[in-house]
């Protein structure tokens, strides 16, 4: 038996049509949606407090489900998704309503909850992984703390008959591992298969990043029809080995290079990739190109999981104000540098209080800073100003001073009409570990 698992998204803003194509043409047993970045939960918590119309789940949930449900219902494709964000139950109720609308109201829908530990994190957690300092050293308001759950509660939901499983924060590869564990009956102590299956999940979790997305470099790594990328499909065998592929006729490519780039994406020690289910060892992996856009991946290793869970902690840390304006033609860079000098003086005059102020000349050194190679004078440049501040009023000064550059600045300054999105709130994301048994996931069946 070969299990066919398709990717439906790699993040909240991802395209929807490739999910529909996988559902329609992929002959899938499972379709898995990954929609959360590190900051998704904290941003959702902040929004939930201010916006009563916000449902607490993926804002594209309805769009995504409307696109795939007719195909999934026809084929009997089960769906595993972390679109539940901070309210998986609300997401599950919404999906149930959509199923009724599509004539599949008898499909059981599950919600996995229990990962949110905001009210307990200060008691449970030790130190901040990034800094080594105790969690108590965080004095700013903690708006969210959620554990990365593993595959087990999803397996429980599938075993209970759920055709759709909605979760909040779950380790991304676990979304893909759970169907394998359920279909093949792997135990949570079967480290070898869990390692292999999690490795495949890791290759799948970023969607098009293994099918030719985030990859093209013209002349060095060319991608066919890059405007028509498909999301990946894994054809998984009972031992966890899998062929990574995509629907026929789509653009993009799957080969040894795309698989290797994704295998090491966001990995630190490749022999010890920590997940809630298992510790993965990629160093033993075998990667074989067995046909066009077909790559077999096997022999990824696994060792027992740790007795802690990673928790992502969101902290309100102030604001960022930013704005950009532009120069072109002869002397563009000189005018940009004068503008930078004027702004630095102006920020002194208006008494800007910022933790960090940054003025970049885009086109010269904005992204790579001091390591940027000097090349010929660019024809056009942008001046981009950003500051991180404690208060919104201070952040507002960035856009207000850039406004002043219109009539009081440098000659031939090109500028956008002042716009409203020049200040954003900063939710710092920090990591910590809590004892595994302090987190009790719950499965609700609708």
């Amino acid at each position: 038996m070969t299990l066919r698992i398709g990717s439906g998204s790699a993040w909240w803003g991802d395209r929807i049509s490739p999910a529909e194509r996988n559902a329609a043409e992929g002959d899938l047993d499972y379709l898995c949606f990954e929609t959360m970045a590190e900051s998704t939960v904290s941003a959702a918590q902040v929004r939930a407090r201010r916006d009563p119309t916000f449902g607490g789940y993926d804002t594209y949930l309805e769009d995504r489900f409307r696109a795939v449900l007719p195909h999934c219902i026809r084929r009997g494709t089960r769906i595993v998704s972390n679109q539940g964000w901070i309210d998986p139950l609300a997401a599950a109720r919404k999906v149930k309503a959509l199923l009724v609308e599509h004539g599949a109201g008898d499909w059981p829908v599950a919600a996995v909850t229990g990962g949110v530990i905001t009210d307990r994190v200060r008691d449970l957690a030790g130190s901040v992984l990034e800094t080594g300092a105790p969690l108590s050293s965080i004095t700013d308001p903690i708006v969210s703390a959620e554990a990365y759950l593993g595959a087990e509660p999803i397996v429980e939901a599938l075993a209970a008959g759920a055709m759709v499983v909605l979760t909040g924060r779950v380790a991304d590869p676990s979304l893909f591992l759970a169907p394998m564990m359920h279909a093949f009956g792997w135990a949570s102590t079967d480290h070898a298969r869990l390692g292999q299956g999690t490795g495949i999940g890791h290759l799948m979790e970023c969607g098009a990043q293994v099918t030719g997305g985030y990859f093209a470099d013209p002349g060095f790594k060319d991608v066919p029809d890059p405007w028509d990328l498909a999301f990946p499909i894994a054809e998984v065998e009972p031992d966890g080995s899998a062929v990574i592929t995509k629907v026929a006729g789509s653009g993009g490519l799957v080969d040894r290079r795309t698989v290797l780039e994704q295998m090491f994406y966001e990995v630190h020690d490749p022999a010890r990739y920590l997940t809630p289910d298992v510790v993965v060892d990629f160093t033993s992996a075998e990667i074989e190109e067995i046909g066009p856009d077909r790559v077999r991946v096997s022999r990824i290793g696994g060792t027992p999981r740790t007795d802690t869970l990673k928790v992502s902690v969101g902290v309100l840390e102030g604001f960022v104000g930013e704005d950009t304006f532009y120069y072109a033609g002869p002397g563009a860079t000189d005018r940009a540098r004068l503008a930078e000098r004027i702004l630095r003086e102006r920020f002194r005059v208006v008494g800007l209080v910022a933790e960090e102020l940054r003025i970049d000349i885009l086109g010269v050194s904005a992204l790579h800073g001091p390591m940027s190679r000097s090349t010929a004078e660019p024809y056009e440049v942008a001046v981009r100003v950003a500051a991180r501040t404690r208060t919104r009023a201070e952040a507002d000064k960035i856009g207000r001073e850039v406004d002043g550059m219109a009539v009081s600045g440098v000659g031939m300054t090109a500028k956008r009409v002042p716009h409203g999105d020049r200040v954003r709130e900063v939710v710092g994301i920090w990591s910590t570990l809590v004892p595994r048994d302090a987190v009790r996931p719950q499965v609700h069946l609708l």
Partner: protein
Amino acid sequence: MSEPTIRVPLRALAHARAGDKGNTSNVAVIVYAPELYPLVRDQLTPERFAAHFRGRITGRVERFEVARLGVINYVAHGALGGGVSRNLNLDQYGKSLSAAVLGFEVEVPARLRNSLRGPLPDSPTTPRPDDHPGGTDGH
């Protein structure tokens, strides 16, 4: 090293992908051919990686070698301005750091030029001892 060499950007030997976690960026460097692996391993040491990124990353650099897959994974701490959400750099996730490493210059024996990608210099250059890419600690 007496055999003729050519000096080329790492981009001729390898491709790369950057990923973010907290304030740390990992840059996986993947050689196009196995015979190129020792060149990258010997020349793009963690120290030279850090020197190449001087002023752009603030923390230490770790390196994980997986020779059988042709991959060297560099883990650069302090690469993301305090973390993605706090980062004032326009490249908040540090995705373009993989392009930055591809600008690192590598000396390649001229006999391996058929293994390289992209435009190459015409004639071999014999390096001077103080002319080694990435530093003056010639070996």
